[in-house]
């Protein structure tokens, strides 16, 4: 795949600025979360997005408020793409009531119904059939809105993936499958778990249109996603997109990554999405350097503010333990011996 970014066609400077901002916020928030976890201030197991930022930034440009997004636990960039405020994301990571899920879900279960960030699953592959159901709902509602589901390369090995692809193709559902192929299924390299590392082939077997995309190139990501979203909005059925990039950190924010082949990581870091995008924006005179500096300052402040806010929020009260099991808490409370 081409190592250079292609020039955008008809993309407004504001869109480029938003994309750069999202990549930066993701990168900075990931880094700060890892530092907080290592310092013992953040109890959360969280899953860095580093390497996937370009795809997330492109998602941010194609998703409309009425579209639904289902994510898997490596989800910070997805949440930002759906315009979930970083304050509520971070408050959730710290287990506070002001979090997206009142502190009861944690980083693996971010959601925000007000923006169509419908759910995040912590179970690899499980989001696909759920997205199929959401797409079926959208289709029965009359169509026009899209459901997008994001998942890693590892998810293409599990049965839920295959069942969902079959349903989506059979019923021509308005769903876009976004495979973030970062080359690692947890700690196992793709060539050690997949007989063919070209995952798009697996989707093609279900007669679903597929495309293999350079996941480090935000413009290539954007074009592929735009095409898929147009197909969905015209009710032409599902698309499977395989975005090929590379995981730039360990599996979790604190996990060992010493096993990564050094040359592979170095090559991938050469294409680190945010700095590469920055260079490209300057080299092609797409954004003035002052604007870029301004975006960087805003991103840093946005991240600092979100962390400070999250740490200042209250923990859930003890009685929150028993709420939200069922709509009515009374039976749950009757089982409590307190």
């Amino acid at each position, binding site marked *: 795949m081409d190592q250079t970014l292609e020039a955008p066609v008809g993309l407004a400077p504001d869109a480029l600025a938003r994309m750069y901002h999202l990549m930066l916020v993701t990168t900075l928030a990931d880094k700060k979360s890892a530092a907080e976890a290592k310092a013992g201030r953040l109890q959360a197991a969280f899953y860095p997005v580093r390497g996937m930022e370009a795809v997330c930034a492109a998602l941010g440009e194609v998703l409309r408020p009425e579209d639904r997004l289902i994510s898997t636990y490596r989800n910070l960039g997805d949440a930002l793409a759906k315009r979930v405020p970083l304050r509520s994301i971070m408050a959730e990571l710290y287990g506070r009531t002001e979090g997206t899920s009142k502190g009861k*879900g944690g980083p693996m279960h971010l959601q925000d119904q007000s923006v169509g960030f419908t*759910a995040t699953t912590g179970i690899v592959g499980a989001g696909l*059939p759920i997205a199929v159901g959401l797409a079926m709902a959208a289709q*029965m509602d009359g169509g026009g809105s899209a459901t997008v589901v994001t998942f890693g390369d590892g998810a293409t090995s599990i049965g839920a993936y295959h069942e969902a692809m*079959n*349903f989506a193709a059979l019923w021509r559902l308005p769903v876009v499958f976004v495979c973030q192929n970062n080359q690692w299924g947890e700690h196992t390299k793709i060539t050690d778990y997949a007989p063919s590392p070209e995952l798009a082939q697996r989707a093609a077997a279900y007669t679903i249109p597929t495309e293999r995309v350079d996941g480090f190139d935000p413009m290539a990501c954007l074009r592929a996603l735009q095409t898929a979203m147009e197909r969905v909005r015209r009710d032409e059925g599902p698309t499977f997109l395989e975005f090929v990039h590379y995981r730039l950190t360990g599996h979790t924010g604190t996990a060992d990554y010493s096993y990564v082949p050094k040359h592979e990581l170095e090559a991938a870091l050469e294409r680190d999405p945010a700095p590469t995008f920055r260079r490209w924006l300057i080299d092609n005179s797409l954004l003035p350097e002052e604007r870029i500096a301004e975006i960087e300052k805003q991103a840093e402040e946005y991240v600092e503010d979100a962390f400070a806010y999250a740490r200042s929020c209250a923990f859930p009260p003890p009685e929150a333990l028993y709420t*939200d099991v069922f*709509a009515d808490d009374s039976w749950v409370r009757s089982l409590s011996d307190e």
Partner: protein
Amino acid sequence: MSEMSAVPPETSEMTMAAAINSGFHLAMEADDKIVVLGEDIEDPIGGPFKTSKGLSTKFGTRRVRSTPIAEGAIAGTAVGLALGGYRPVAEIMFFDFITLALDQVVNHAAKFRYMTGGATPTPITVTTVIGSSHFGAQHAQSLEAWIMHTPGINVVMPATPHDAKGLLMTCLRSPDPCLFIQHSGLLYSRKEQVPVGPYAIPFGQANIVRPGRDVTLVTYGTQVATCLEAAGALAEQGVEAEVIDLRTLVPLDFPTVLASVERTRRAVVVHEATQFCGPGAEISSRIHEELFNELLAPVVRVGGAYTPVPFSKALSAYPTAEKVVRKVRELM
């Protein structure tokens, strides 16, 4: 709508399968968000036990869809439909096949409300059927204890046509996920007068199907009939057994059970599910904890043997009325 109304409702003689089918028709007429997914549910098959007969003809194959043989995606699609504002029913042909759908039922449907602080209630109804030994061990197991052990999903198990319809209609209106367990041995074995119109039986209300003063038989599903047979035999021996049909296992109506045992001071819990770690363990334990000083004898459980369900009719894993009678006699 309630169970009781001033004017006696029009009734018709129905099997449990017919009563369930009637419940589906009425609920789907009243709520166009109800969508049914399952294997072979469209007409002319109408489901392996005919409980969805006529639904696809009446409501169309957009709302009543036969699916590929893929329990995980049936349940997962139902979860997604619920998140998208629909009231899906996911039919799992036999209870044993729920193993293939458990990730969606347990990790998603049951937890989604909690994990999002109430933002994503997931009101799916999973319907399933306990088979029988005729099919062998993979189409016969009673797995309700598994699901009872998962916070966040109602577990419903009717014993009569009347209760089946009323409880199904409650499932289809519930704000929470429900597992509606039918038993193949009850779907066609007996008919009774069932209201033709809609009615709902609230969850968590056990039914005292036979009053008695000497011992309480706590049961549900097929074993209600077993216990009534045992109670008849016991009455001839001068022992008056009270029989409680729990109807729903989650929520479980402990007040009715405890009030009964407080009077009778003896209890036997009876179910087809494997006795070891079965629902009876929880019920028995709770009775002991609450009524230890009132009991004249320890609570006894009569459940399925700790074996897979055997095929040969010479072997039976299930409780019998004779065994229930014997266990009660030992308490007296």
